[in-house]
């Protein structure tokens, strides 16, 4: 069958989709968007989280046909959608981090000087916060966590720790112990309230 959907703002179509293929498979293998990860394909780990018409879902549990005609945002589209939310200006990139006032936030200003850390690449604030807080180790959980965290912060700009834990409870991470993921979300929220 043919499936038409909008992915990260761009209309996409896939042909010869077998009826059992998941949205995750179609994104990764047919549309060349491997950012959404395939850690369990059982709906248990959240690595494949994307937004389907704005709602975070495990794309491994969504049949490709169910996404027909709908809007999908993946980790590859996070920076762009953050830019649009911010009113079409340049991505905030959060390199204004230096001005974050929360002590908790300041602790994580790791001050990367490596040319490869991508100081000039436009990232969504939550993406930059994950890098700065050290919330990325192997990074396999990261795309799903970013999509979930971005949605939380959109809904709830000032989440409590318990709110963060509740929102991210569907996303497993085996490397970090989650503490630095907490730090990253707190940092993204703190930077945002600084800017507001």
């Amino acid at each position, binding site marked *: 069958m043919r499936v038409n959907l909008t992915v990260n703002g761009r209309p996409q179509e896939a042909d010869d989709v*077998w009826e*059992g293929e998941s949205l995750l498979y179609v994104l990764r293998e047919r549309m*060349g*968007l*491997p*950012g959404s*990860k*395939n*850690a*369990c*394909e*059982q709906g*248990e*780990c959240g690595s494949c989280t994307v937004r389907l018409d704005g709602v975070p879902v495990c794309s491994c549990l969504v049949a490709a046909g169910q996404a027909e005609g709908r809007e999908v945002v993946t*980790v*590859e589209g*996070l*920076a762009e959608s953050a830019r649009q939310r911010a009113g079409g200006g340049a991505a905030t990139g959060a390199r204004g981090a230096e001005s974050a006032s929360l002590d908790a936030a300041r602790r*994580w200003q*790791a*001050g*990367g*000087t*490596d*040319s*490869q*850390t*991508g100081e000039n*690449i436009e*990232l969504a604030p939550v*993406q930059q916060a994950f*890098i*700065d807080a*050290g919330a*990325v*180790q*192997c*990074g*396999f*959980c*990261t*795309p799903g966590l*970013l999509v979930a965290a971005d949605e939380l912060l959109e809904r709830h700009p000032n989440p409590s720790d*318990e709110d963060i*834990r*509740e929102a*991210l*409870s*569907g*996303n*497993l*991470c*085996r*490397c*970090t*112990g*989650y*503490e*630095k*993921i907490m730090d990253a979300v707190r940092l993204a929220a703190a930077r945002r309230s600084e800017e507001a």
Partner: protein
Amino acid sequence: MAANGAPTGLTQGARTKGGIGESTLRPDGVLKVTGEFAYASDMWHEDMLWGQILRSTVAHAEIVSVDTSEALATPGVHAVLTYDDLPTDVRHYGLEIRDTPVLAHGKVRHHGEPVAIVAADHPETARRAAAKIKVEYRELPVVTDEASATAPDAVLVHENRTDLPLSPPTSSGAGGTPVIPHVPHPNIVHRQPIVRGDATAAAGRADVIVEGDYYFGMQDQAFLGPESGLAVPGEDGGVDLYIATQWLHSDLRQIAPVLGLPEDKVRMTLSGVGGAFGGREDLSMQIHACLLALRTGRPVKIVYNRFESFFGHVHRHPARLHYEHGATRDGRLTHVKCRIVLDGGAYASASPAVVGNAASLSVGPYVVDDVDIEALALYSNNPPCGAMRGFGAVQACFAYEAQMDKVAAELGLDPVEFRRINAMEQGTLMPTGQPVDSPAPVAELLRRVKAMPMPPERQWESSEGADVRQLPGGLSNTTHGEGVVRGVGYAVGIKNVGFSEGFDDYSTARVRLEAAGGRPVVTVHTAMAEVGQGGVTVHAQIARTELGVSQVTIRPADTQVGSAGSTSASRQTYVTGGAVKHACELVRERVLELGRRRFGSYHPAWATAELLLEGGKVVTDGGEVLADLVDVLEDEAVEVEAEWRHRPTEPFDRRTGQGNGHVQYSFAAHRAVVEVDTELGLVKVIELACAQDVGKALNPLSVIGQIQGGTVQGLGIAVMEEIVVDPVTAKVRNPSFTDYLLPTILDTPALPVDVLELADDHAPYGLRGVGEAPTLSSTPAVLAAIRNATGLALDRTPVRPEHLTGTAGADGT
């Protein structure tokens, strides 16, 4: 540079930023947050086929017949291979003992063993074709524990072991010298006794003697990135393999002979690795993908699903441990006797080394002169077990720390004070007789972790009532605080760093310094597997520190450079970091030599002063700038490839276990605070604080990340993680993330960390391996806290609700 060739302006050199000791950010961070980082399962090639493995549905059976005809006839299928299709006589592989068949031959020895492989044009086609392969099994009795393994009529898991003399061991060999049998039974992979002093005599001096039996469940590494790889056939008859692994060269040594190819025709490149924790030390689908690619002439990708991943890698050895501790009234340990039985499952994997670790670290970080220790690993028809973070030390730590609490209680001493009295220090002898010759701040770590502020009591209480999210049971809303009790527990552990027992544990680094675009740039090339730990960050930091150049590129790891050894045993920053440092030092010497030749006549300091590279310049130790690096280099590139090894170690004596077997130790202590709903048996860990000595934190942000990650893996084994194997059929009952429970962010508490930096003079920069120690002590700390809260004895891990409510069966399961 001035026109006459003389260096200009002698000013202060600027220190290069991003060197060691700074929390430099990961070079792969941006790729990982944008979804562009290519993990093994993201590899793609035009024309590629998908590989699928057919696995055994039973644990132990003779294979009567395999019929692949229907699978082969399936449209879209390009190859179906079994043992009979293997190209050479080398049909087994293994890390230490080559006992694992590439595809089952005649027999299967565990549930999920690979029997046949398929390549097809769609993963679903491959799956369906594999399901059409007809395998007829004649089931055999299963060996599942020590009793069934060593019973008089026990079935032998490996009926023709080649690493043993085939005749039964005799008590004396030719010439009257006693023959020390490698193992007392063919169903035992390896055995290591350690005897020092006279434990029985020492027991006579004890005022209290405490015995205990413990069981440690089978844990899975559960890295999130599934086993995956892409094999691309080469025009020269060789193959290129893009793979997620922990040690490229170890894989290569095992793969090439099976394919019948020389090693230089199997070109391996590390693809993105989504975590490892020991689970990628053994081969998984490497050979299978190469075989299918070479057979079909097409690139072949294999991606395990999560179900298959539980069968596709070894697990942490489950263990039964028996301990006896004695102590005098004043709180001094007199002796330790222990016996540790590890279940290695169907194939050897890393079992011999795990046994060595369990034995040599079985007493923990304590001073005990009289010990009688035995550790062994069984062959069984349970899933194969091998390396996992903490490697043999984890199981022992769980038991000896429970014992320490029991002895302290028996003596009426505070458990931390009792540990402090017996804590080892620099100079203490290990049970193996080896002196600990670098700082061993065991008492200090305990003091620090105890001194950390406690989380507030009943923190879930607020003016509006209880925030159920902070209570045991969480959003299930099972309690509002009634029946909830708090407990606090402590534990400390000791882990060896690097490979032990005489292993030639070296690493190789190639470092290149050149001028490009008017700036000095460094390229570092090693075969180190970056599995998430942050080695790539640290290598760049070392190069900046040693060569004073800010622009450092880390080349992808592949087999075009010498071996880096394994990313395991907390060794990579030590050994490959050491190799990068060493190669940089050699580059620096060559650069200074160049400089002397070019500019030596312009300034006497070239000949007389200690010279450094800082901020892209050659400077004296007084900070005077002698030249810009780009001027020294001109268009010459200085490149050095060098090997580096740590101090040699030696094997443990087979009979006494004596020997300088380890190169370095690392230490961590934990304090756990838990709340338990005693009615439902639910546990909430409120806080898990850690104090660890890291020698020198090369990257503090990464160090803390490693400590927290290791801590939570220890929490997982304490309260939820366990692969459940049916004791009758030896089949795995829970190969999924639905049934194998991993800590989520809701199960994970605040994780404060106190980092101590006491340099080890033998190690590069004084560093100490970091990754594993926190996994040791976190489990027993949580258990101690639960015991403290409930008053229950709790001798197994993980603790499940039924153990807390008294509804578990007699066997604790």
